[in-house]
């Protein structure tokens, strides 16, 4: 098991999401950067859907009271075991009573810690993903105990010890489709949205990424309709909001763009203050 000594700034257990209850207003949740979380699982021989610990920088400080094999993917960060920096390119063997800590992320936003066999926090409505009001809490807290699968000789053999984890790639362009209301925009508004340079706001979280631009477009509200992670909404006052994994299931702002799955992973890696553009897929 893992004891949380320090929770870090924004850490939670996530899998690929809570499917089947969005019609009851339950957000999808799940990891922000699917590609990186899945990579961290596969290298350990876990199914890609196994629950992992997601964290932003500065990360948590974790005490492992039993041996475990872990992998860390996503935002570039150093990993220390009992204070000693270790190689993060491949799986890491953690011995009994080890303290794991992380350095500041130097590229990207979200990191993923996978554990051989998975993190076994309680499954609620078919998912282990944290979401406040559905699970006990939205984030891990100091003193929390995270159950993990017990390591066996057999499971140790499933680990791809020689493989290397993919390095995070940061993009300046985020892939999008036209959203349901895109066709209702004027040509000038469309151009402004597609040609503008955007900056990610530090107020962003797992519900929404706020983006700023100098070319404000204002779009009237719509009759409340379905939204999903990756929906890009514009408010009547011209604020642009990209919905993330913990977003509500319906919304009343105009849905001008919709990120592709690849575009979604791309935007999760852009740090606050960094700039990007949208690249329209047809």
């Amino acid at each position, binding site marked *: 098991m893992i004891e949380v000594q320090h929770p870090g700034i924004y850490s939670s257990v996530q899998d690929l999401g809570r*499917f*089947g*209850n*969005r*019609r*009851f*207003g*339950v*957000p999808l949740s799940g990891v922000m950067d699917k590609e990186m979380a899945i990579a961290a699982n596969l290298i350990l021989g876990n199914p890609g859907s196994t629950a992992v610990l997601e964290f932003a920088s500065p990360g948590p400080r974790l005490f492992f009271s039993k041996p475990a094999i872990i992998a860390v993917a996503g935002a570039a960060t150093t990993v220390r075991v009992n204070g000693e920096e270790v190689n993060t390119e491949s799986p890491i063997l953690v011995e009994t009573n080890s303290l794991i800590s992380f350095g500041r992320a130097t590229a990207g936003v979200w990191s993923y810690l996978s554990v051989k066999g998975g993190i076994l926090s309680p499954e*609620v*409505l078919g998912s282990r993903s944290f979401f406040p*009001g*559905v699970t006990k809490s939205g984030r891990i807290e100091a003193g929390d105990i995270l159950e993990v699968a017990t390591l066996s000789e057999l499971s140790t053999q499933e680990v791809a010890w020689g493989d290397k984890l993919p390095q995070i790639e940061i993009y300046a362009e985020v892939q999008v*489709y036209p*959203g*349901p209301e895109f066709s209702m925009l004027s040509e000038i508004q469309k151009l402004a949205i597609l040609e503008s340079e955007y900056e990610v706001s530090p107020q962003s979280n797992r519900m929404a990424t706020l983006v700023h631009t100098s070319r404000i477009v204002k779009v009237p509200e*719509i*009759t*409340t*309709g*379905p939204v*999903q992670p*990756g*929906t890009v909404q514009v408010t009547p006052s011209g604020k642009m909001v990209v919905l993330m994994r913990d977003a*509500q*299931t*319906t919304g009343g702002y105009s849905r001008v763009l*919709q*990120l*592709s*799955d690849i575009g979604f992973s791309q935007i999760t890696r852009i740090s606050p203050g960094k700039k990007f553009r949208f690249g329209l897929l047809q």
Partner: protein
Amino acid sequence: MQPTIVKFGDNGILFRWPEAFNEETHYEILSLDAFLQKKYGDAINETVLAYTSLAAFLKESLDTDEFINDFEWPQLDTVEVNLETVTYVVPVCYEPHFAMDLPRVAEHCGMKEEEVILLHTSVTYDVRFIGFLPGFPYLSGLDRRLYTPRIEEPRKFIEKGSVGIGGKQTGIYTMNSPGGWNIIGKCPLNLFDINNSPPSLFRPGDKLVFKAISMEEFERIGSLADRGNFEIKKLL
């Protein structure tokens, strides 16, 4: 009226009806939802309903464009919707302790507070869909005379169970949440419970009426509900 169908992201499909909302649209959305579950249940992960649209999210292995091309439209008026429409009696305490905005609503609507409560409890509301918060019912049927603009500065914290009026809408906050509606009462029930299947008491297509209760009843029902011992009344 047949909706339009468009791709909504890599795995999503959006069915849209004309914006003007009416009874017929509501019924057609419920019909299409029932049809999708019956005919395409294996291909669709889940659906999300709203006032004039319905989103279907496909299994990731499927090709969304292909699904749209091959989609076989049902005759929506002939789809059998096996809806056990339940009408729930939802207890609400409208006492001043829970009704911080009742005076404001009464003043805006030019009536006495008792008249606001009377109008609010004399209508059968339709649950159009669930959204905004887990279990939060979007209702239609609010008496026009109670339409009241939202408060100017949304509050950072509205307690679970609070009943509010926002513009033309009324509803119940099913969880603690920020919110901008005028709070006129509080319901002692747990309307969203992860131990129930489904976790939301209300489903699209259900109906509800509000029943005014005293502080004493609020306390009594609340403590029963917290122990899972309160059976909500249903009208036949």
